[in-house]
């Protein structure tokens, strides 16, 4: 009898696998077989508590108990300790939901991550899945867009543009054919929220895109997914097939008579294709060279048609907004930053992982409270917030609340929520140089400040570090940064100077002759 088998969960997710969860899953099956124990192994996604991965969970009387991090060598001892019946083990952590790291979060977008089987529609529905779409198919387009606008949801890819306003533009734009595109080219270092949602709860993205399609009258959607995420590509493709066969995608979505079809398109390793117009060029099969704006993609996007371009987290936040209402979502957050921030603790951090929490906590509360400081145990020297184009935040600024406007005032940005922690061994001169080098490697080449400016930036920093005309070159570097910020066509050249300027302003001792 399947019901008699004890459910054991071992994540099938990139971070957990990178630390050995495949070997752990295999060992559990083998040892269970040898011992004649009846185990139902579920390959869930990850809860995003990566410092505890591989995290093994056992369900006892409906409560999940966590053990972690577990290596394949320790599996035998788990069985010896009777972990299937609530036995104690040195790696036992108690009920998963009571772990403070998880209990103190506001899991809205990530409500199901690590809990469900990512490829089980039943499991998705049992945990509230498709409640949002069920409401949406009964509403007219205007009403859906109103709810999203009212929720205060802003683009989680980094630009923080109000989602409802973008959708209204597409809804009211003229065009027989409209499209929904999802930007899943998550290229910022320090970010993995998109990957985590696609690998752990793919149906939530599918549901969000379907709602978007119905809201603006688009019948086709594309997920532009980075090639560096092979597992996410595999899982999303499988999930789309399952949703199609169950009538959640296709010509008659949930019996509404409305059509929405979805397809994954694999990117090809160009950072610039995370910029929306460059992504559209790439989807059209061209070089990912950015477009002049206007016209906005909402007016003329994919093949000239009105197109929604939203990030994975933005679209994945829509189902719960529809299911619970705009007010429910809006009640989280602070100031003009409503709802939840999916902060990602990365780099040199003791407890790295995903922290979804209402906007407004300070950087210190997240990085020290949740993160526990550095992995090396040394003092934190800097935190790069918002990816490779984000400023290096100095410890004197750590009490800034995480909201879009408060960070903008610092000359920093929250961006996609990546927080990369560095200890005091970091060479900030090297980091400034890398910002320019990265821009030179990834520039699409369309505008001069970015294409040439970044190369000159590397050269000027090299001269400063080797003591050639140091003070004159520091002046030149700042002028170069100003030119790039003011003169570049898109955020790559326009923001690559931010990390450099933050090093000049807050870590000048590292930007001098050595």
């Amino acid at each position, binding site marked *: 009898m399947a019901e008699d088998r004890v459910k054991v969960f071992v994540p099938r997710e990139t971070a957990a696998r*990178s630390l050995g969860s495949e070997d752990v899953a295999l060992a559990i099956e083998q040892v269970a077989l040898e011992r004649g124990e009846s185990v139902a192994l579920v390959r869930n996604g990850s809860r995003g508590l990566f410092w505890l991965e591989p995290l093994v969970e056992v369900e006892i009387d409906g409560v999940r108990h966590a053990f972690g991090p577990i290596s394949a060598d320790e599996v035998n001892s788990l069985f010896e300790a009777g972990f299937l019946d609530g036995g104690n083990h040195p790696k036992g952590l108690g009920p998963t939901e009571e772990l403070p790291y998880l209990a103190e979060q506001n899991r809205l977008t990530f409500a199901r991550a690590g809990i469900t089987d990512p490829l089980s529609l039943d499991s998705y529905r049992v945990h509230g899945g498709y409640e949002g779409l069920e409401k949406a198919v009964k509403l007219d387009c205007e009403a859906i867009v109103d709810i999203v606008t009212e929720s205060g949801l802003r683009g989680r890819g980094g630009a923080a543009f109000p989602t409802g306003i973008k959708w209204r533009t597409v809804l009211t734009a003229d065009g027989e054919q409209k499209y929904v595109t999802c930007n899943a080219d998550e290229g910022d270092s*320090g970010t*993995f929220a998109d*990957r985590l949602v696609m690998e752990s709860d793919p149906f939530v993205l599918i549901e969000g895109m379907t709602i978007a399609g119905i809201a603006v009258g688009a019948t086709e959607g594309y997920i532009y997914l980075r090639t560096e995420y092979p597992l996410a590509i595999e899982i999303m493709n499988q999930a789309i097939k399952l949703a199609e066969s169950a009538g959640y995608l296709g010509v008659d979505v949930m019996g509404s008579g409305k059509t929405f079809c979805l397809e994954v*398109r694999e990117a090809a390793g160009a950072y610039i294709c995370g910029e929306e117009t460059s992504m559209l060029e790439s989807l059209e099969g061209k070089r990912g060279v950015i477009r002049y704006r206007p016209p906005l993609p909402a007016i003329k996007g994919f093949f000239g048609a009105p197109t929604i371009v939203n990030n994975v987290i933005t679209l994945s936040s829509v189902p719960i907004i529809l299911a619970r209402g705009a007010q429910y979502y809006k009640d989280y957050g602070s100031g003009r930053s409503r709802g939840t921030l999916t902060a990602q603790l990365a*780099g040199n951090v003791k407890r790295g992982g995903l922290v979804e929490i209402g906007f407004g906590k300070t950087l210190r509360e997240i990085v020290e409270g949740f993160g526990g400081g550095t992995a090396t145990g040394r003092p934190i020297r800097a935190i790069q917030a918002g990816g490779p184009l984000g400023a290096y935040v100095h410890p004197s600024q750590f009490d800034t609340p995480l909201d879009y406007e408060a960070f903008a005032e610092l000359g920093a940005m929250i961006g996609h929520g990546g927080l990369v922690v560095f200890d005091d061994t970091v060479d900030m001169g090297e*980091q400034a140089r890398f910002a320019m080098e990265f821009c030179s490697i990834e520039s699409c080449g369309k505008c001069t400040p970015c294409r040439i400016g970044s190369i000159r930036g590397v050269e000027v920093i090299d001269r400063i570090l080797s003591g050639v005309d140091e003070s004159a070159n520091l002046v030149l570097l700042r002028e170069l940064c100003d030119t790039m910020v003011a003169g570049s066509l898109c955020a790559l050249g326009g923001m690559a100077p931010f990390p450099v300027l933050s090093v000049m302003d807050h870590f000048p001792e590292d930007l001098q002759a050595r």
Partner: protein
Amino acid sequence: MSDQSSGNAQDSDAALVRKIAEKYVSQLGPLLPILHAIQDQFGFIPTSAVPVIAEVLNLSRAEIHGVITFYHFFRETAPGKQTLYLCRAEACQAMGARKLERHAKEKLGVDYHETTSDGRFSLEPVYCLGNCACSPALMIDDFVYGRVTPERFDSLVDEV
């Protein structure tokens, strides 16, 4: 003799490229899916594929070449048996990626975008594998490894 057999091989490659291109041609924006499928098939995009794709899509060879060379992921030469994608972005830097990078190049005796002389490994830089809480990260073919120390790098490379 050898000329003729390589000629035959080229003909069959061209036929395969045409078959792949025709499979995707009715899609909107088919070029990237075609290039991915060709690279999956051959390990790289042979120069001889360019005119065939151009003809099927009714584009110029220059346009196809321009797209192939724009994207870091597409390659025009055969890779080694396995490709090592080493992350050199900031989160990995914070955990010693610069040291790992020096070690990897020394151990393999190659620089980025090169293949070892025995043809076993190609080394490619990558800017983020999305495993930033378990840095440094390395992807071998399509499997990602986390917390890769120089020692772990050696054992992974020796294993495969």
